[in-house]
């Protein structure tokens, strides 16, 4: 393939292009961390990816070009097609799926390299600790692969049950020890093919076993963790192949993903070790022990609309329930009606609203809500005290005062939006049951709370109609 230019020039071009790609990735990620420049950021990173991919065709001594090109086309087109079609509410599981693919790819690279060791051909590049890093990358990548697929299945609703059995931790521990022994064999000794197969099978199993006991509510943290792991695996395989673009991009994502995972876990007040080794969002940890006093008081949508139209300041707290009902467009319409009437409207977003931190912002942005009307928990919590109406729509645990008051509640200590401090609270809810986590919401029983029952979409429609008549 590189016949038309000298081997030296090809080498130089390859290295220069990888260098450029690494710069573009970091530059792109940097731009993606500000709302105004974020769009450009992903385009820059995309250019980096195209440059790196094209230049790789010039790598010396390669064959199998037909297989390579067809794999790129098949994989690329399938991913393009699914990525364009997926609804915004389903975005988290798609990220999990694509992430699993990356982990699987890194693991497959390691498998090819280890096979070369097995057949005696030797690693593609003899580099510092290459065989050890190949084994570690294989382990991490495989776990990220099978774990992400389970996370995908759970969020997609294909796997609703939480599987747990006695001695699961011990079994995981035993498997892990076996993996370490096998890994040491692969890294340091001559090994039989069965060891290689057993290693990958066990790693696949560990990924599955680690993920099945985790409840849906914790999935965002888990996806973020697997994202970081895939990055790390890619980085390690980059060291094995002596490929600087992979090393840098992989490790940057590995550390950025680790930080992101910590930020998410903190926002949910759940240490990462708890997410991985204990259950939550599974409904079997006791539930709230505090006596619920008072009763739920219902309100008509038209009355609620009048209350909001005459208010000076309204804060809307959207939750995943709103997104599932596809009510975000109606809510934005309502907001515009209220703003026209001189009401000051803001949106308060809990860090874990939706299914991932920031997911709700994406859903609101899709409906056309400008991002400067949207506030984080820290910025808005002090404002509830001088707010006339807090409209809670489809949110539940993130406004539950039990997190502040009830020490026995599983969500005690989680930072919440202090909707109960507003003069009036209107909760839009489908029925009287408990939410996603199965915890009773004390907010619904407060004296200043009124419940507005119905489908979020219908209620929003009635609110718009009601507000317009005022």
């Amino acid at each position, binding site marked *: 393939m590189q016949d038309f230019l000298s081997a030296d020039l090809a080498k130089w071009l390859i290295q220069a292009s990888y260098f450029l790609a690494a710069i573009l990735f970091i530059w792109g990620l940097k731009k993606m961390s500000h709302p105004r420049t974020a769009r450009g950021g992903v385009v820059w990173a995309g250019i980096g990816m195209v440059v790196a991919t094209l230049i790789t065709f010039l790598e010396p001594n*390669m*064959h199998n070009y037909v297989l390579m090109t067809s794999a*790129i086309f098949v994989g690329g087109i*399938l991913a393009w097609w699914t990525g364009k079609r997926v609804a915004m509410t389903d975005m988290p599981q798609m*990220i999990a799926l694509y992430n699993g693919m*990356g982990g699987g790819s890194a693991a497959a690279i390691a498998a090819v390299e280890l096979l070369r060791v097995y057949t005696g051909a030797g690693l593609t590049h003899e580099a510092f600790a290459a065989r050890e890093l190949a084994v570690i990358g294989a382990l991490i990548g495989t776990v990220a692969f099978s774990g992400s697929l389970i996370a995908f299945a759970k969020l997609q609703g294909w796997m609703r049950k939480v599987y747990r059995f006695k001695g699961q931790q011990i079994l995981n521990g035993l498997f892990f020890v076996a993996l370490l022994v096998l890994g040491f064999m692969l890294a340091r000794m001559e090994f039989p093919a069965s060891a290689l197969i057993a290693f990958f099978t066990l790693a696949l199993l560990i990924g599955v076993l680690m993920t099945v006991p985790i409840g849906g509510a914790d999935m965002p943290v888990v996806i973020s963790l697997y994202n970081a792991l895939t990055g790390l695996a890619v980085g390690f395989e980059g060291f094995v192949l002596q490929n600087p673009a992979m090393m840098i991009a992989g490790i940057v994502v590995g550390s950025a993903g680790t930080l992101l995972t910590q930020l998410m876990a903190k926002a949910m007040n759940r240490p990462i070790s708890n997410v991985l080794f204990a259950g939550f969002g599974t409904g079997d940890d006791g539930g709230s022990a505090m006596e619920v006093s008072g009763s739920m008081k219902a309100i008509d949508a038209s009355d609620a609309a009048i209350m909001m139209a005459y208010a000076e300041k309204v804060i809307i707290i959207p939750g995943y329930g709103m997104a599932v009902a596809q009510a975000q467009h109606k809510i934005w319409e309502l907001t515009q009606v209220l703003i026209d009437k001189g009401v000051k409207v803001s949106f308060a977003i809990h860090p874990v609203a939706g299914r991932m*931190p920031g997911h709700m912002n994406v859903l609101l942005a899709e409906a056309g809500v400008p*991002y*400067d009307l949207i506030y984080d928990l820290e910025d808005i919590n002090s404002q509830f005290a001088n707010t006339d109406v807090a409209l809670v729509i489809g949110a539940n645990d993130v406004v539950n005062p039990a997190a502040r008051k009830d020490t026995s509640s599983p969500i005690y200590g989680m930072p919440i939006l202090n909707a109960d401090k507003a003069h009036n609270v209107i909760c839009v809810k489908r029925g009287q049951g408990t939410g996603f986590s199965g915890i009773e919401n004390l907010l619904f029983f407060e004296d200043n709370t009124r419940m507005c029952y119905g489908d979020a979409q219908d209620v929003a429609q009635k609110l718009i109609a009601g507000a317009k008549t005022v």
Partner: protein
Amino acid sequence: MEGFIALYIFMLAAFTGYEVISKVPVILHTPLMSGSNFVHGIVLVGAMVALGHADTPTEQVIGFIAVLLGAGNAVGGYVVTERMLEMFKSSKEES
């Protein structure tokens, strides 16, 4: 020395990742996770090299899977990230 260069790259890249993310507003967490998910799609490059050097049929099959999955990661990651970020607007801009 070669091992130390690898360690330096590792350390500097790790710091860079940490720095880039640490000042991110919550509203961008999901797009950014998606964006970093796209960036590790660079694994495609490694998969191409692995397949390019594959000799036995087993290696070719595994290498083929590696490239297929890597391309899926890169393309899918880009498409969903781009779709998400496309929607971010300020009320001051025309909307």
